[in-house]
């Protein structure tokens, strides 16, 4: 599909069929009777891995002007690559400040990128000229749900107008059709359609978060990027939204549309157990680099990167009782060299080296992100051997590995 197609999408396929949102609200909202949300435990949910990606990011680098410090720019994302196939949900995790929001913003063109390729359906949108890029954005192929809903919703526009914006900008459907589509979107995220008349400041935090999700799904995007979509929601509404997202990517946009047209999704979240509930794959960011990328159930069960292992060991909700404890994966405090210039490693070292209990001299060079097994990439010099050093005292873990390497060399 090229850009002309995107812009010239016929109005009738773009506006979702309006389901009556009045009456029957109680039962409809729970949607327990909707067969599309049935989730079979352990079933393969994503698309076959040979499907062409919908979004393909390669070597994306983003930096900002530094306000202080020795260098003139701070690099926030370095050489980041990831794929999203139609119908697939890719989770992005990583500590606060690791670059998750920046990645999302760069993909939708809200953050300037220094290098790389952002390929959506065969078009490198980084190379588009301004007008084409704007046309692309208006085409509504990619929708973004902001981490801070107040930023997404114009404080002076009613919720209904904000949700409708994608449709009105593209001139899709009649006014009545647009209103019906808005009511349907609000209903699907569990909101009383009456909130359409209120301003964002006059609804609750969780209602704002759901309104901004409604805004993003109202015009059937091809790719949906959600930054912490359920962080402000109670358990029941959180699950309602997760199920909605799961339903959206399973259902092709129209009756006669193909597998290829299914919605692809990126979900950024600190809530690892919720993510595990719906994502197919997970990408782990650490200080702006992808350190691991693989099938989520496998990665969470047996992570291959020491940072992923630490992250998962620190999350009580998904931690495996037989897995390593956080203490086993942390370097003892007296051996931490976290501040720049302090017994520093070279700038080119593995990003995790300053905290990694398994770091050796080899880690003074950035490890490449390489497939450990097909479909599962890891950036660590000591994968898979670091696990063998686990049982030992963390202070000696690296020594064990160094010996191991030396022995192998002999």
């Amino acid at each position, binding site marked *: 599909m090229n850009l002309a197609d995107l812009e010239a999408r016929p109005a009738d396929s773009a506006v979702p069929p309006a389901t009556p949102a009045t009456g029957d609200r109680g039962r409809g909202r*729970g949607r327990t009777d909707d067969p599309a949300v049935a989730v079979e435990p352990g079933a393969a949910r994503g698309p076959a891995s040979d499907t062409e990606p919908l979004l393909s990011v390669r070597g994306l680098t983003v930096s900002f002007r530094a306000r202080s410090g020795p260098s003139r720019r701070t690099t926030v994302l370095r050489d980041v690559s990831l794929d999203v196939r139609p119908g697939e949900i890719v989770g992005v995790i990583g500590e*606060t400040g690791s670059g998750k929001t920046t990645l999302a913003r760069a993909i939708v063109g809200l953050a300037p990128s220094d290098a790389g390729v952002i390929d959506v359906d065969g078009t490198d949108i980084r190379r588009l000229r301004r007008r084409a890029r704007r046309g692309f954005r208006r085409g509504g192929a990619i929708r973004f749900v902001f981490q801070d809903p107040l930023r997404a919703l114009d404080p002076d526009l009613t919720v209904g107008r904000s949700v409708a914006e994608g449709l009105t900008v593209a001139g899709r459907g009649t006014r009545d059709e647009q209103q019906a589509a808005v009511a349907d979107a609000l209903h699907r995220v569990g909101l009383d359609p009456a909130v359409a008349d209120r301003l964002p400041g006059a609804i609750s935090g969780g209602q704002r978060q759901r309104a901004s999700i409604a805004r993003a799904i109202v015009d059937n995007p091809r790719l949906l990027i959600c930054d912490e979509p359920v962080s402000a929601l109670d358990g029941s509404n959180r699950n309602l939204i997760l199920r909605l997202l799961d339903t959206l990517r399973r259902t092709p946009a129209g009756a006669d549309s193909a597998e290829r047209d299914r919605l692809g999704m990126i979900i950024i979240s600190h809530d690892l157990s919720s993510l595990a509930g719906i994502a197919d794959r997970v990408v782990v960011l650490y200080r702006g680099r992808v350190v691991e990328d693989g099938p989520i159930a496998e990665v969470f069960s047996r992570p291959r990167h020491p940072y992923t292992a630490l992250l998962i060991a620190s999350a009580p909700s998904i931690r495996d009782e037989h897995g390593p404890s956080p203490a086993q994966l942390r370097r003892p405090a007296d051996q931490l060299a976290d501040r720049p210039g302090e017994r520093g490693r070279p700038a080119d070292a593995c990003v995790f080296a300053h905290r990694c209990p398994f770091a050796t001299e080899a880690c003074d060079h950035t490890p490449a992100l390489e497939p450990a097994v097909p479909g599962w990439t890891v950036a660590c010099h000591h994968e898979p051997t670091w696990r063998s050093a686990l049982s030992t005292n963390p202070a000696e873990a690296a020594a064990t590995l160094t010996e191991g390497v030396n022995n192998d060399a002999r």
Partner: protein
Amino acid sequence: MSDDLLRVDDLHITVGGGPAGRRNRQRRGGRFRRGGRSSATAAGSGGLRAVHGVSFTLRRGEAVGFVGESGSGKTLTCRAALGVLAPGCDVSGGQIDFDGTSLVGLPRRQWDGLRGTRIGAVFQDPGSYLNPSHTVGRQLAEQFRIKVGHGRREARAAAVALLATLGLHQPELVYHQYPHELSGGMLQRVVLAIAVAGEPDLLVADEATTALDVTVQAEVLEALDRLRAELGLAVLAVSHDLAVIAQLCDRILVFYAGEVVETGPTADVLANPRHPYTAALLRVASVGDWRRRELEVIDGSAPPVGARITGCRFADRCTFATDACRTAPVDLRAVPDGGPGADRAVRCIRLGEIDPAARAPERAGVPA
């Protein structure tokens, strides 16, 4: 001097009333949205009732947590206690006492004094409360200068130290950044720093740790615990993360549709919920085994704000509902067998008759 710091008694709040109800412009960038009148107006100027008779007491150094359905009145209750209700929202009944001073109908100037020095607040959507054109360091240092009376350099050092305490790795760098240059989790900690900089007696923290990863969240909770121990800081925390409430709060209030449906010591309520809504919330909130995708929801939806309901407001969704539940208002009753000194109360007429934690068979199971 009494031990009670904040006493809220039978608080009623109406929303959407008055001329400002629909389309008033809201300021962005200011720390507080001012203009909320806190005078008790009998008729609530034609607004809809969103909070119905909430009562609780917060003692010095104590931490109380609000949990419950999105849109159930948690934030409105906090804002009323801070005198920062949005235009169109009014306290239509009840009493709010802060350290012996009645806050309902308090003149604005006195409010400003209180908020500035004795009460600190973090609201949802923290980014919108910072001034986008000043560095965050400047905004934080200002607190130390105004409220603690530090000089310029002292204030700066104190600001950097506080940012470090809250787990920001490069506090000097963050000091010089503008709000839009920070990640969600960094911003949240900056706003928290601003709220506690003046060493207030009370911190209101509305979803103040939602943007943090587990590790940083643990650091922030530890920092709050220290402040409670060192300064006798009392905390009013709102969160959907029950683990956060469990760790931080001594007591918990469970909100549903503008009412408190259950209250008691946090550990007791979470271990042994006595109200059907609390039990349902706890059940769906835990993901259980993450490998099995049980994304359960509570069927149905809460009544909209302003709905006229005679009986129990949860009845439409309650698996234990009987006709009697719908005929008369249901009061919050003390739990007789709540245990020694447990101080528990539940708003359910079938209290004692039913075991809400046991699943009603007809609605059990993963929806198919």
